[in-house]
């Protein structure tokens, strides 16, 4: 029974990892950027949502929408101002760039919203669902639901919509895309907008649990990276699989081995997986032609 409970709450947490990881992978796939700022971007947008709720007094979903809009703008701005100029430079310098962005966003957020944590309302409240000893809270259900919905949307968009196809193409080969008349820059911007919005959704779902403060994402983002690598950094389904897997695994390790070494075990798992599959569970290899 405990096992099942742990699996379920593991899945709920895993969904949050998955959402952030999804954003990371999406951005990486199309723009080849390992985005360390993802977490702080999400944090920022969550604070925006909070201000809209508390200061402006919008209803929950209004604030939610507002935050998403801001997220999109933020994503586009960052891509345009800081990432696009680097499209030729090495993985390292891009990575460093995102670390720089991360520091700045975090600091600025501190200036705007201060350092003390505050409570963030949940989207849905109400009595938890009980199946025998099993307890599932509404927020957990919400997490699962949102993740599934987003996955579905992604699947459809990527499979059928023009934008999605263009994104996939851009991921494959930027130059050819340009020749084919795809507006690659536009695609890049869109990707960042979507990635940033995914982060915001995750942030808003996480905030009620971690409580809203500057470092709310600091741990989640690391987990998200782990999840992304676990699933394969260039595979969207991989991100989700990785996220859920990590969430569950952490809970089981905590439950049956040692809470203190949770992170260490997570790392061991990653190394193990990567040693067997260097590109993660669902990742694909790019063979360099010579």
């Amino acid at each position, binding site marked *: 029974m405990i096992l099942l409970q742990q699996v379920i*709450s593991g899945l709920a947490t895993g969904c949050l990892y998955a959402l952030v990881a999804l954003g990371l992978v999406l951005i990486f796939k199309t723009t080849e950027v390992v985005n360390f700022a993802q977490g702080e971007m999400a944090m920022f947008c969550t604070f925006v949502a909070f201000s809209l709720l508390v200061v402006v007094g919008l209803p929950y979903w209004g604030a939610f929408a507002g935050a998403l809009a801001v997220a999109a703008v933020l994503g586009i701005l960052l891509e345009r101002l800081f990432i696009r100029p680097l499209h030729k430079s090495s993985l390292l310098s891009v990575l460093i760039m995102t670390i720089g962005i991360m520091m700045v966003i975090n600091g600025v957020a501190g200036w705007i919203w201060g350092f003390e944590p505050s409570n963030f309302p949940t989207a849905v409240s109400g009595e938890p669902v009980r199946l025998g000893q099993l307890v599932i*809270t509404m927020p957990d259900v919400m997490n699962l639901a949102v993740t599934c919905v987003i996955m579905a949307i992604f699947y459809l968009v990527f499979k059928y919509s023009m934008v999605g196809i263009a994104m996939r193409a851009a991921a494959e080969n930027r130059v050819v895309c340009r020749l084919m008349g795809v507006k690659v820059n536009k695609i890049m911007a869109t990707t960042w907008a979507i990635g940033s919005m995914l982060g915001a959704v995750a942030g808003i779902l996480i905030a009620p649990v971690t409580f809203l403060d500057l470092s709310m994402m600091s741990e989640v983002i690391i987990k998200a990276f782990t999840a992304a690598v676990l699933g394969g950094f260039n595979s969207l389904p991989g991100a989700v699989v990785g996220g859920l897997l990590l969430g569950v695994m952490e809970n089981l390790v905590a439950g049956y081995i040692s*809470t*203190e070494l949770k992170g260490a075990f997570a790392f061991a798992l990653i190394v193990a997986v990567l040693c067997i599959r260097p590109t993660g569970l669902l990742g694909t290899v790019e063979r360099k032609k010579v």
Partner: protein
Amino acid sequence: MNRENWLRFIVWAAVSMFIAAVIAGCGAASKRTASGVTDNNIKIGAFGALSGPVAAVGVPVRKGFEAYISYINDQGGVNGRKLEVIFEDDQFNPANTLAAVKKLVEQDKVFAISPGLGTPGVLATLDYLADKQVPFIYPMTGASQPAYPLKKNTFVVQPNYVDEAKILTQYAADKLNAQKVAVLWQNSDIGKQGLEGVKAQLAKAGVQLVYEGAHDVKDVDFSTHILKAQEAGADTVILYTVVGQCAGILKEAKKQGYKAAFVTTYINSDLNLIKLAGDAAEGLIVAGWAAITDVNSPDYKKFMEIYQKYNNTSEMPSGYATAGFIAGEILVEGLKRAGKDLDREGLLKGLESLQSFNGILAKDITYTATDHSGVKSLIMFKIQNGTIVEISKDRFALKP
């Protein structure tokens, strides 16, 4: 890289370093007053994390401390001297703390350090301050090193977590007639010492520890722990963690409908806990070592007034702010008692003369020449309809 660059670099580095050092020389030479006291001014140094992840603690501490100091200055200061506070940010990194404290002591020539926030920073600077015989009032840590063995220059205020946990366990046994206790502890110095204290007291209190579970500093999922505590049939759960996670645990317990007595450390005697946990916090028993939680008491109103006036804000001060405030109270009291011709020896003597001193928030503070370990008794609070109320006026302590 060829040899020429190499040499050029050495020169380049050396010159810049030399300049730095010379500036250092001048900088310090210009202000060589005797240990931070002039006829109308006393220089006080303080350190804590004002940026980085732990800023959420350091910033309110600073607000609380500086609010009280400005309040005193507006009343003419201490024995005609105004207090000047230099608060250094160490980002919770002991290497930075040591740098900051060295600067405060050697460059700024502060008279005393108060307060100093954060276990790593305190542990890294304790010996240095002892060597330099700089008074160190209120090292903000639950670690026991500052208190034992006695250091002539160091005055601990809040009880360390080991001692506190012993008291809490005893209290659970005596007043909540606990049989089976569970401890949910944060995987940090706080939790570790709390657990240690509980274990040490089990036998004396005649209770048994049926479950103990640790969570990481950033964990958000506590379902496992609640489940296991429930399974183990714990009737009392002692929480050794910080506000956010304490709230998370309480929510989880409510969610699973786990009925047990929840007891937690003074770290959580903080109105934010209610803000965060909402009705899940109802019935929680919180320890307090000072009158820092009963919002309706005149003392607290006075504190609020000062805090909000000097930070020109309307926000509710957090528990950390109260700690900063109390540091100010004790420091100032010590300075008062040290008298007009002030020196460090005098301050130490002054502090050692405190006999169950009661300030605005600081309560029952006693120091002697042989004991600088601060508060050893707790006030017990309960959370009822969204506020924290005292369970009884008299403080609870271990019988010797």
